[in-house]
């Protein structure tokens, strides 16, 4: 067994030199590259984290925008439904009013038509009554009829107030008869009217066949109707008033 101090020294120096050389050419550069890669990886991770944060923020913004759009859509739909309901109600109300107006118009037209028909019927009935009355009067005794109508004329004058009768006395009056009056008939009329008015009557005579039968007394400010025509007119007016009262 040998132990050489020179070799010990050489080997110690060799190992120390090797430590320095490998530190210079191996350990330091490789460790530096690892550290640089770690720094680069950390930077990339930071950038990725920032990008992820940014993406999450963008996603949240999109979500919020989508929620806002949904809310806006719901509000728009609610407004549209409300407007549609209001328009529907308005249209229904207008249609209902139009229908009621049409119904009222139709009802009024129907009433008017009925009234017109009734009036026409009344006119026709009145004309028929006049015709019937004229034909009946043609078969009656003219003298007796005239006497009856003269009596009713006197009764009409008697029913007038005293003051009015006093005004009529002496005033020019026109006697309208349904048939022409001869001299005797005119004298009877003058005597009967004068007796009722209290003096001589100032009468003129005129014939109107439309009266059918009877005598009427007229002046510019006075009229005493006493004929079948006037009676028929009064009956027709009464019937008309009854019809109007029934319609109301």
């Amino acid at each position, binding site marked *: 067994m040998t132990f050489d101090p020179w070799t010990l*020294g050489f*080997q110690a120096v060799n190992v120390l030199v090797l430590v320095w050389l490998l530190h210079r050419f191996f350990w330091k550069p490789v460790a530096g590259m690892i550290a640089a890669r770690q720094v*680069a990886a950390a930077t990339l991770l930071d950038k990725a984290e920032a990008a992820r944060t940014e993406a999450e923020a963008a996603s949240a913004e999109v979500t919020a925008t989508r929620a806002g759009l949904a809310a806006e859509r719901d509000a728009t739909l609610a407004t549209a439904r409300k407007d549609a309901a209001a328009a529907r109600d308005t249209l229904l109300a207008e249609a209902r009013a139009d229908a009621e107006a049409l119904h009222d118009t139709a009802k009024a037209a129907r009433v008017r038509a009925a009234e017109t028909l009734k009036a026409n019927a009344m006119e026709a009935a009145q004309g028929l009554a006049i015709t019937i009355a004229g034909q009946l009067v043609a078969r009656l005794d003219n003298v007796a009829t005239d006497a009856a109508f003269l009596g009713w004329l006197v009764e009409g004058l008697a029913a007038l107030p005293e003051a009015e009768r006093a005004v009529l006395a002496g005033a020019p009056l026109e006697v309208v008869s349904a048939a022409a009056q001869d001299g005797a008939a005119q004298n009877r009329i003058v005597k009967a009217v004068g007796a009722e008015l209290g003096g001589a009557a100032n009468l003129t005579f005129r014939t109107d066949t439309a009266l059918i039968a009877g005598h009427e007394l007229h002046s510019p400010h006075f009229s005493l109707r006493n004929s079948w025509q006037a009676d028929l007119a009064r009956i027709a007016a009464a019937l008309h008033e009854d019809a109007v009262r029934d319609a109301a």
Partner: protein
Amino acid sequence: MDSPLQSLPLFTVGPAPIMASVVVTWAIMAVLVLGAAMLTRRLSQVPSKAQAVAELLVATVDSQIRNVTGAAPAPYRALIGTLFLFILIANWSSLIPGVTPPTATMETPAALAAIVFLSIIFFGIRGGGLGGFLRGFARPNPVMIPLNMLESITRSFSMFVRLFGNVMSGVFVIAIVGSLAALLVPIPLMVLDLLTGAVQAYIFAVLSMVFITSAVEKGRPQPKKES
């Protein structure tokens, strides 16, 4: 067959004999340094296979140092990593026919143990100062000073003896078996020698780190115990 315990000089430089172990060490140094220089000349962020292997080696050494010391690995990386690489390559150089590993002679493991011994002193003083380092011998009490001083020598001596004994014995056994049956028979022993060489390199590096860490820790002020 020459005794593996004998070192014969190849040549002399003045009064200094140059042994074969020194020449093999120079060759190993040349291979390591040239390889490292070529490898680190083209480092990039996207590593090649060779660069990936180199980074794996550095990361592994850093991890081991961090696990043992709990501190940053940079101050210890060059020493511990170089010790491991040199011992590993030196041990495995026995596979080259005609080459005797430098670690199979007493001078090289002794030099390595001496470097570790001096490194323990250096890092101990750097970590806790000269006073702190010397006070570390008085822990846990001053009675232990002689034993602690003796231990600091013997543990380095044990590293020297362990490395030398294991490698030398492997070479010795292979040489004996090879002299008896030279063809194929020594191969399993050579494979076993590879494993032994790797394990011894790892043990030497880890023990060096443990002893240096122990010296650094002992040199630092100890927290007072609460009564």
